[in-house]
């Protein structure tokens, strides 16, 4: 999962890039008006959260819809100085990175076998993962909690990460299998003539060649893990293990009278997701639409 893999991009260009861009004309004013209204509607609430963090509570009480005057940074600096925020940030990072790595590693290995070898039960195995698409986490959450508790993993990030990996696997396998199937058999023959073992072929050829698909599924797993609220809500009750969504919810109820600080906490916890999104915007949009269009 690094930006160095961007060079592999052309394999799976986002659909809207297929058509060569021509010189764009200025469209009609109506189009721009609609676009501006749309963007305003999309960003207004976000701006409300961010700007509200720069105000004091008395400013917010007097005029809930106003701009900061004067601008106050103490809410943000307070949150940044609090351990609550950094603990949740750290936990979220661990949870999302571990889920991504786990889902990608296990997913690539399983998809590789399903895509490239003939064996009894191969169809059943694929169907098993595909059936997983039918079970959203909401359906399994109650017994899932019991399972995690039986394994003694409540209040530990492992209790969140392992189910997240498991629930990321169906999409991962469904997206990766066609990628891996598309690698020509001649490549494998050539590699084995040159003395590569099956595993050597796997690491040296398969993994690099399927990188665009791997990045797509990695991003999907990361976003889902980062934003996951329900599973941590069931599994984690110790504030020291809270991820950001739980941290935000907890902070909001704990400091419900301190609206400005809640807004500051909330907007700071948006930042990582927005940075991640702006870095991988093309891939996220392309990956989601590609994954859905199949």
């Amino acid at each position, binding site marked *: 999962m690094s930006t160095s893999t961007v060079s592999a991009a052309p394999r799976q260009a986002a659909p809207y890039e297929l058509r060569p861009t021509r010189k764009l004309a200025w469209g009609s004013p109506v189009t721009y008006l609609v676009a501006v209204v749309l963007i305003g509607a999309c960003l207004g609430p976000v701006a409300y959260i961010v700007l509200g963090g720069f105000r004091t509570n008395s400013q917010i009480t007097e005029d809930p819809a106003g701009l900061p005057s004067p601008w106050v940074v103490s809410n943000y600096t307070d949150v940044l100085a609090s351990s609550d925020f950094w603990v949740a940030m750290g936990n979220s990072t661990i949870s999302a990175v571990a889920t991504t790595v786990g889902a990608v590693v296990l997913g690539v290995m399983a998809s590789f076998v399903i895509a490239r070898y003939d064996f009894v039960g191969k169809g059943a195995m694929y169907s098993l993962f595909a059936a997983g698409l039918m079970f959203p986490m909401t359906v399994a959450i109650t017994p899932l909690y019991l399972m995690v508790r039986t394994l003694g993993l409540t209040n530990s990030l492992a209790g969140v990460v392992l189910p997240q990996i498991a629930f990321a696997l169906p999409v991962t396998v469904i997206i990766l299998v066609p990628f891996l199937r598309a690698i020509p058999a001649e490549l494998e023959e050539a590699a084995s003539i040159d003395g590569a073992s099956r595993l050597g072929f796997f690491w040296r050829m398969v993994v690099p060649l399927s990188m665009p698909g791997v990045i797509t599924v990695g991003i999907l797993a990361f976003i889902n893990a980062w934003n996951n609220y329900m599973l941590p809500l069931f599994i984690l009750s110790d504030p020291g293990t809270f991820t950001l969504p739980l941290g935000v919810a907890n902070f909001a109820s704990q400091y419900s009278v301190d609206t400005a600080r809640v807004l500051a906490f909330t907007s700071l916890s948006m930042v990582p997701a927005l940075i991640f999104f702006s870095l991988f915007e093309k891939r996220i949009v392309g990956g989601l639409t590609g994954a859905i269009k*199949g």
Partner: protein
Amino acid sequence: MLTGPAILVFLTFVIVPVVMAAYYGFFRWKGFGPPTDFAGLQNYTSILTDPTFHDAVRHNAVIVVLSLVIQGPVAILFALLMNQKIRGRSVIRVLIFVPYVISEVIVGTGWALMMSDTGALNTLLGRIGLENLQHSWLADPSIAMGTLMLILTWKYVGFAVILMLAGLQSIPEELYEAAAIDGASFWQQQFRITLPLLGPTIRIWAFLSMIGALQLFDLVNIIWGQYVAATAGTSTMATYMYLNGHLAGNYGFGSAVAVVLFLISLVVALVYQRFVLRRDTEGALTGDSGRKGRKK
């Protein structure tokens, strides 16, 4: 061998819990020790005769229908506008996707503050002289569902627009040129060319939207909390399950709710696939491995 770990994790945390839910659902069970108090179908009869569960199902149904009816046309209209070759198109595309990327928890926290009785919206309405439009947006049961739909639309319409845009890009431009030569107006072109060819995209989006709406939990739980949701008229099957299963410690009952929720989703998915999606994705959901015609 390579598949071992994946299968193990998948079975342990997806398949086994789902199967166990079906089993636990037949017991009165507080979740300690093995379930012994066999109750037969009693959990299911309690659920199916509970008026608060009926409310939750009705709310889910309203959310499903309104999501489709509101977001679909809005998304298609916006996508048509955004599909014109205008400057700043890529920036617009990124910005309308921002609400989708933010987690439901953050969305809920921010919107709850904006829509509260003394929040930004009511203040704004008051300032521009529309006091009679001020409402108790979150607590008033006759409005709360509308508020929820507003927030859901805000969060998810960008995703729909992006999907529709991707669908529009795959329609060959020559069709429009030919239609224009034949004298078709802009709107005729949209109804005769765009909508039919956008069909597969719309149908897939509708499917995802419906399944998501049936599972809705985060937003409702954040904004209304587990107790207020029912009185405000926004409870869903998932919040019902959380309240009456997990928080109440009735794991047998909670599992039974999960089974009902799953069966409802499954029936919706199968019916939709049977009658609507069939021509687009042959057997994609029933796990047919023969998805040969996959385009990438």
